[in-house]
């Protein structure tokens, strides 16, 4: 019962044969070898499987692949900055030491980018609320808050410089 779907993946036009029950995170893994979105809790509670579909972060372990027909899908693998370097959010996570085992990190990076797109200068409550759907068992939460603030400052500076 597989059928072909076409969509944009990290900016490229792609096609995949998917079964109706297959989730987005499974298809990314098996068809495209992308492992940055990963299933952990399997219930959409932890955010490890975060994928951006049509500019909104979704839980890739619950989101059916077949719903991605004609969609624009972006994963952590596409999130890098210019010239393949790290984007300001990724660099801030490195500089603030906001990761330990790294399993949840791609989900946090993608959610932080969405947070800063919506609220460019978030306060601590904004950060806690917006990222509360992502879990980190190593509990690097204080460092993640620092990373988000650092990324916000740097994005602000670079916006001002570009004016």
């Amino acid at each position, binding site marked *: 019962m597989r059928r072909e779907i076409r969509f944009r993946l990290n900016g490229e036009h792609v096609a995949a044969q998917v*079964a109706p*029950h297959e989730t987005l995170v499974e298809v990314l*893994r*098996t068809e495209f070898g*992308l*492992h*940055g*979105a*990963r299933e*952990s*809790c*399997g*219930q959409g*509670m*932890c955010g*490890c499987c975060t994928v951006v579909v049509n500019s909104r972060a979704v839980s890739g372990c619950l989101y059916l692949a077949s719903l991605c027909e004609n969609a624009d899908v972006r*994963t*952590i*693998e596409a*999130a*890098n900055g210019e010239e393949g370097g*790290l984007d300001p959010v*990724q660099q801030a*996570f*490195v*500089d*603030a*030491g906001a*990761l*330990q*085992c*790294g*399993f*949840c*990190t*791609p989900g946090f*990076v993608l959610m932080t980018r969405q947070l800063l797109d919506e609220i460019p200068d978030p306060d601590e409550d904004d*950060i*806690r*609320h917006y*990222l*509360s759907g*992502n*879990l*980190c*068992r*190593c*509990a*690097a*939460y*204080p*460092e993640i808050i620092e990373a988000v603030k650092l990324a916000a400052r740097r994005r602000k500076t670079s916006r001002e410089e570009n004016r």
Partner: protein
Amino acid sequence: MKRAGQSTETPQVGRSVPRLESWLKVTGRAEYVHNLRLPGMLYGKIFRSTLAHGRIKRIDVAAAQAVGGVHRVVTGEDIRKLIPEPYYGPAFHDQPVLALDKVRYVGEPVAVVLAADPHVAEEAAHLIVAEYEELPAVYDEVEAVSSKAIVHDALRPAGTFPDLKHLKGRTNTNVALDFRLRRGDPDGAMGNAARVFEHRFRTQQVMHTPLEPLVSVAESTESSITIHTASQSPSFVRIEIARLLGWPENRVRVRVPFLGGGFGAKLYIKLEALVSVLSLITKRPVKISLTMEEQFFTITKHASTFRIKSAVTKDGRIVARDCEVWWNGGAYADIGPRVTQKSGFTAPGPYDIDNVRIDSYALYTNLPPAGALRGFGIPQLVWAYESHTDMVARELGIDPIEFRRRNLLREGRPQATGTRMKDAALEKVLERVAALMNWNDAFDRGGGTVRRGRGIALGFKACIANTTSLAALNVNADGSCTVYTSCVDMGQASDTAMAQIAAEVLRIPTEAVTVVHSDTDVTPFDMATLGSRSLFHSGNAVKLAAEDALGKINQLRQELHLPADAAIADVFKKKYGMRAGSVMGAGNFIPPYTPPDENGQTDNATPFWMVGATGVEVEVDTETGRVRLTRLVNVADVGAPINPKIVETQLSGASIMQLGFSLFEKMQFDADGQLRNASFAEYKIPGFHDIPAEIVNEAVVAQQSTGPFGGKGVGETGTFGVSPAIANAIHDAVGVRLTSLPMTPEAVFNAISSNAGRE
């Protein structure tokens, strides 16, 4: 924090180098076994017991086998044909690869369906039917001592530990270890004391929930097997699989990339024996990835009961302590007997007490097995002895910090084992936590329905002995360096620490060092990455290996008439006339240790002591029982930090993890031993809304004289004091004493209500 440059002028040790694999992790490209797919690979899905205790009468796999796409269904009897005695475990050979003859807990693996499509395997697993003859079950650790329900017909100690030998073949018991320690004359001291206090405490069963669930892959030929596994103990996996198969160790290869968290869950054998056997049976690569739900049926943290009794003089000196601890090990011993002994001997706490009695029991019950979880039993003990210590102090009308100060186990004084304390900054840690809590200042106690309180707790741990680490190191012709160690980086940044240590010795930048991940065909033996032992043990081995290589390089410098500070690349160039060659170094580290006698006495119980204290300020809502932490202060003796930023992250992360175990995490079982909340929808772990507004972490100025560059382990230290500090703060706020974990709003509210009823 700015990334330090490539300068070698900055010392490598003591510098907050960002972890070396940062780029891989923020771009989603770090390697985990979770990602691995091999050509022709089969996926295994496990069919599990629905009964807590029963004899297996029949397993009907016909319907599952008939599902299109199912390659094979395997049961315990199939495995017995390949391995006559398919039982494994680090302390007892008690755990069958798949259930044999009996099931001993709800969720125990009974059969496996193999298929190329994991969805097919899962669907078919639902069609398996098992019939059991139900047996009486036991769940409580204290009841298990005298229960008629016997989990194992006969005990099967592994034979590697002398203190387990007397248990061999014992029947009609659930006691998997009865550790005892005797010092002085506790009965006499109790009889003569001014005051005697006795309390009983309990902790609940919880799970590590690493976000990368347990996963293993095996691929085999007729004469060799390679296991790719998310394991903290690759060397142990190799030895145990070789033993099970009756093969030499060099035919078993164990590879471990990064781990998506470990916390003690990924130790010893978990899925490795199962995937190995399945690969040998099917002659195909086999992968088993557990779901989050299945992890709860695999390994957990011991629930425990602790009866503690202290005799105290009029001026507040503890003269005797009597400790009785029951550890709920679940259906298989795993490392429980070692928790019972290695942690058990610190049960009286970090106090100078002349008369001590400890009885510590490892119990089998019909619950999921329990093992190591970030503290190896220490958080359970500190929970009891620091709640008790606070209760005694308050009862005597002595300030809790002053009471601890009076009784503190000071440098050079003998601990309960008789081992004299060395490099354990208990005094500094206690004084710093008091200072950071502004203990002597006036404190806002709140009012109305929100009451405020504060509390502290101090814990210590003896690092596990007797353990070995080896390391090898290659200095390449360009002066870069490759370190070979079987230490596993599960998020604690051991790769970075090992690189810093090697770089410091070789006087090269940390960034010029790479660390080869565990591969038993390549990396030398290392006991395991557990119990905060690796920075000290593996770190010392890496340091020795680097010194060995440096000695050889210095010799070359001399032979080639080069100055003592000649660049390494120039040494090779002069030696070989071009860029060629390499220098290898080897390090073998095993610290001294004296096993305890029959009274638990030894002059050398541990290679190093870990010390951690926590202070908290809480707000208690008297109408809902909700406890909110407004401030969390962690202070530790970590020796001299190799990487201060990473040390801070470890302390902070450990304390937040313990916060979950203190306030809300609990595996809830019904009367038939069925787990009711095995998922993140029902089992909550700490998230952003649970962490305190202010967290302070501090490592006191200290040196571990035997550690690499003065350093020692830190992974568990942040957990020690959290639970009792919160209980002490709740008591301070609202005058009620909680003696069971977790301290849920319901428990706090009920305690407040019954307290009000009494008044």
